[in-house]
């Protein structure tokens, strides 16, 4: 385990050190101390590193992550794991707005709650939230899975494309073109796998599934106000 003191050595040194690690590096385990809510920690990592951030982070921690496993032992600020490609990001605490925004792959696990716009424009990422999520989550979500063990806020899945949403608790309201769909056996299996990857022991049968009604897929004047 190599320890990096953000306060002493600074952001640029942190990210350039992480970027310098190739897939074959022996230095795979990293610990970042004194994050103190700083922005852009461990962004653009492109190697199978195991990085632990000891404390809360600011904007865009683990942004565009590839291959790495990044653990945040605290709360995550806005846009955590934005546009993640692969690998995984695990947050012990809560996540601020835009968690996993536009993510294209990998797994994002939030053990606390997520604020608004969780999984906005997601494009293939799997997001598992142990707690609740805020309003406008999965807005324009295109692909991937959003699992919520708690409750969802207003306008869930507004203008949804092909992403799947599973919610165990209540949904305050559904957004335009988002509907509840039948939970068939194959969805239970998908969800079981997601929950296992999300380190969550919830029972898949307790969840409801939401998806796109696909009414906005081709422009129809009768739906003009919903666009």
């Amino acid at each position: 385990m190599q320890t990096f003191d953000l306060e002493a050595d600074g952001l640029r040194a942190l990210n350039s050190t992480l970027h310098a690690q190739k897939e074959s590096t022996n230095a795979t385990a990293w610990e970042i101390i004194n994050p103190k809510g700083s922005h852009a920690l461990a962004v653009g990592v492109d190697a199978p590193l195991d990085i632990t951030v000891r404390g809360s982070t600011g904007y865009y921690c683990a942004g565009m992550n590839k291959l790495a496993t990044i653990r945040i032992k605290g709360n995550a600020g806005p846009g955590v794991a934005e546009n993640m490609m692969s690998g995984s990001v695990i947050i012990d605490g809560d996540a601020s707005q835009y968690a996993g925004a536009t993510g294209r792959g990998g797994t994002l696990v939030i053990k606390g709650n997520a604020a608004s716009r969780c999984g906005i424009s997601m494009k293939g990422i799997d997001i598992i939230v142990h707690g609740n999520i805020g309003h406008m989550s999965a807005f324009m979500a295109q692909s991937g899975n959003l699992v919520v063990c708690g409750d969802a806020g207003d306008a869930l899945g507004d203008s949804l494309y092909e992403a799947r949403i599973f919610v165990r608790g209540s949904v305050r309201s559904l957004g335009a073109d988002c509907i509840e769909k039948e939970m068939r056996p194959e969805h239970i299996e998908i969800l079981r796998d997601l929950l296992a990857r999300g380190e969550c022991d919830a029972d898949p049968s307790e969840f409801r599934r939401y998806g796109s009604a696909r009414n906005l897929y081709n422009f129809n004047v009768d739906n003009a106000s919903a666009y």
Partner: protein
Amino acid sequence: MCGIVGLFLKDSALEPQLGALLTDMLVTMTDRGPDSAGIAIYGGAEAGKWTITVQSANPDADFATLEADLAAALDAPVKMTIKDTHAVLVLDADKADAARAALKSLRPDLRIMSSGESIEIFKEVGLPADVAARFEVSKMSGSHGIGHTRMATESAITTMGAHPFSTGPDQCLVHNGSLSNHNSLRRRLIREGMTFETENDSEVAAAYLSWKMANGADLGGALEASLDDLDGFYTFVVGTKDGFGVLRDPIACKPAVMAETDQYVAFGSEYRAMVNLPGIETARVWEPEPSTVYFWKH
């Protein structure tokens, strides 16, 4: 667009540190607002006394004999403390209105920053660290305070355009965001008798709340009403003599983080602003919901 910080103390043992804690929070938010900075501090109210904070572009000339001049005009004692471009005048509460009138005739160019039983506002153009140092904010004590760092969007970068805005006794407001209907609302409030110092959208929000409260609403009710009447993006933090409130617009794009312990309630545009508060590691940290009024009172 801006950085906001706020700290409402529940534990009076922390009161001597209020200024120091707020200064650290304010300076951390420099990136969000490098143009100007300001702070409102609610110190201990002295029974029967009134505090007016004034600002001058020519403090040496304006403040030289102000204490004696105002005392003579009021025929009552006045105590003045000069802090850089600002001066804090403490006088008998029953002379508050007379003092405003006297200041207007004695020093017509002075600008009144705040007026009330316990509020003092200091704000200037410049980096937050410099502004806080000029007014020695870190030495101040009090029960609650609000700070703001400004990145100006459309209105001018001036002292009066800096936040907090105070449009009523012991009231202040800071804002992150931008309002779309401030011009029409300003005209409506002017017809209602409110006065304005700037073209700033945030001042309209402050005046709106003051107007609502002057017409009988409490702060919570005034904030509720603003959800219907203000159009735009906003996160507000407002202060009153004994209270502290937070409101985000229904879309809630602009960031806001809150932390609560047995000792305090804190607000920051980013969590970063709160990392040096005592006990933050174990505080309850959350983001305020959209369209929801949060309010704490002593």
